[in-house]
């Protein structure tokens, strides 16, 4: 009885601890009177936030999703991945007078790579490729769009834990830990801006808690008016939307007997690889946060291959010989999970 009570008091204390930490920090840098003032405003701010229902991780995430969809913002962030130089990006988002979402993502180093989204039209401008547009409501960027826009879709497969508050990018931030319920996928640490709910930092960590990939926001600006950049976009000049070839309904030849919790087959087809022209049976798995590709080839065309495991940035690459078939998996999941998925593949008779 005593121990369970203790448990409760500790739990309650954790909620208040980081705030007190911030206050202590403030006390250190300010004079006595200033500190008093800060304390007052801090308490008021807390009151305002607790009026907003953000005392649960779910409420924080819906605040984030709302902020990402509805605010005019400009965010500078850096992506850090193993084995690759750091990649700085500028990300701008605005709502025009007709309520249409406009978004721009710009890679700031090198020859440049720019993506512009106006409503449901996403235009890619990249070196070595003629510009093209796709019909989509999200930009395929370095961050998991589905988490930002529809976090509620992940609630069944991931657990969201409110951890505490800290200071990130010079702002006070709420930390949220994201853990897959069946411990089969990498976890995330999110730091959300206390004021706006926008992302300040995101760490992808492996099952031991070691960082794999990091997004660090350097500067964040929320404005009343859309950024003047969006007024300069000449809509008719954007490339036409590419019309996709109608998907031939092929009967799936393969069956997966194991899938991590919340993961589903998003697509199953036969296509040619862009670089080598080889024909592959393809399965795309997704759980909203990570995408996993599985390629199946007859052994003869996959000559000279053998079982191997590799890593490209934070992607796990696993190739297995299974009877007459060579199976390759690419995706940001732990090798153990990748192996379990591959081993469960079965030919449908």
């Amino acid at each position, binding site marked *: 009885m*005593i121990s369970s009570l*203790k*448990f409760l008091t*500790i*739990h309650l204390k*954790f909620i208040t601890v980081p705030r*007190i930490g911030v206050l202590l920090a403030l006390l250190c840098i300010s004079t006595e009177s200033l500190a008093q003032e800060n304390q007052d405003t801090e308490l008021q701010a807390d009151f305002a936030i607790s009026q907003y229902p953000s005392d649960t991780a779910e409420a924080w995430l819906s605040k984030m999703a709302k902020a990402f969809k509805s605010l005019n913002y400009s965010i500078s962030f850096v992506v*850090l991945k*193993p084995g*690759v*130089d*750091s990649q700085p990006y500028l990300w701008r988002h605005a709502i025009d007078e007709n309520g249409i979402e406009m978004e721009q993502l710009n890679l700031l*180093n*090198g020859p440049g*790579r720019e993506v512009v989204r106006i409503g*449901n039209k996403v235009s890619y401008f*990249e*070196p*070595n*490729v003629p510009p*093209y547009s*796709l*019909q989509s409501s*999200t930009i395929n*960027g*370095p961050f998991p769009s589905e988490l930002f826009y529809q976090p509620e879709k992940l609630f069944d497969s991931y*657990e969201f834990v409110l*951890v505490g508050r800290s200071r990130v990018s010079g702002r006070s931030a709420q930390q949220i*830990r994201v*853990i897959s319920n069946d411990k089969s996928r990498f976890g995330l640490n999110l730091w959300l801006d206390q004021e706006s709910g926008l992302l300040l930092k995101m760490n992808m960590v492996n099952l*031991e*808690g070691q960082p*794999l990939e990091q997004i660090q926001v350097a500067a964040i600006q929320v404005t009343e008016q859309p950024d003047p950049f969006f007024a300069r976009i000449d809509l008719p000049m954007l490339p036409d939307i*590419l*019309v*996709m*070839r*109608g998907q031939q309904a092929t009967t799936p030849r393969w069956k997966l007997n194991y899938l991590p919790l919340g993961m589903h087959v*998003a*697509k199953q087809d036969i296509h040619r*690889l*862009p*670089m*080598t022209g*080889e024909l592959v049976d393809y399965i*795309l798995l*997704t759980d909203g946060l990570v995408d996993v*590709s599985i*390629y199946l080839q007859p052994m003869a065309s996959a*000559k*000279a*291959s053998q079982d*191997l495991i*590799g890593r*490209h*940035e934070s*992607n796990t*690459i696993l*190739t297995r010989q299974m009877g007459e078939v060579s199976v390759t998996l*690419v995706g940001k999941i732990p090798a153990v999970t990748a192996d379990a998925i591959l081993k469960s593949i079965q030919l449908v008779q």
Partner: protein
Amino acid sequence: MSQKFENLSALVDGENSQFDLQGNELITAIKNDKDLEQKWHSYHVIRYGLRKELPQQMQFDIAAKVMLALESEPAILAPKRNWRDLPVLGSVIPFVKQGGQMAIAASVAVAMIIGVQQFNQNEADQPFNSAAPILGIPGGLSPVSFEQTNTMPQNDMMEQRRRINAFIADHQQQMRLKSVELNITPSSVEQPAKNDFQPEILNDTP
């Protein structure tokens, strides 16, 4: 007693406002009090549990178990007499023994140096902040590293690498196209396919 635990709990949470005054006393108390020490340990475990920071394998106090095992070890009552017990040699041999000890100490030092060097090398392989600048297009394809069990002829290796790169490029492309296909509305499906879409994306996508 409960007041003591209360203070301890506050200290663990970092809530102890008069840390300097009470905290020091409390820490001394923890050092001397088995009960408090145990509580100090379990509060931290609870804290990690609440924050979902528990390691996959819990390593509880091994030292205590080793101590227990040592205590229950049978004592050797009557050691056999050997050359060390001879009156003359008894005073000489310790030098030899010392030499042996020094040699052992030296080898430990060598092992430590090697250990430290290896450790440092591992540090340098840390994923962040240490990536050598990649020449060419930033964010472009970086070489895939393999952990292979047996050696392969050079040609096969190139072939393998080429295939893996093709898979990675295709994976990136599929991720980009996924949102398009998931968003297909009935009206867009009805549109006739005007051209076959096979974009050649040579670099990986951001």
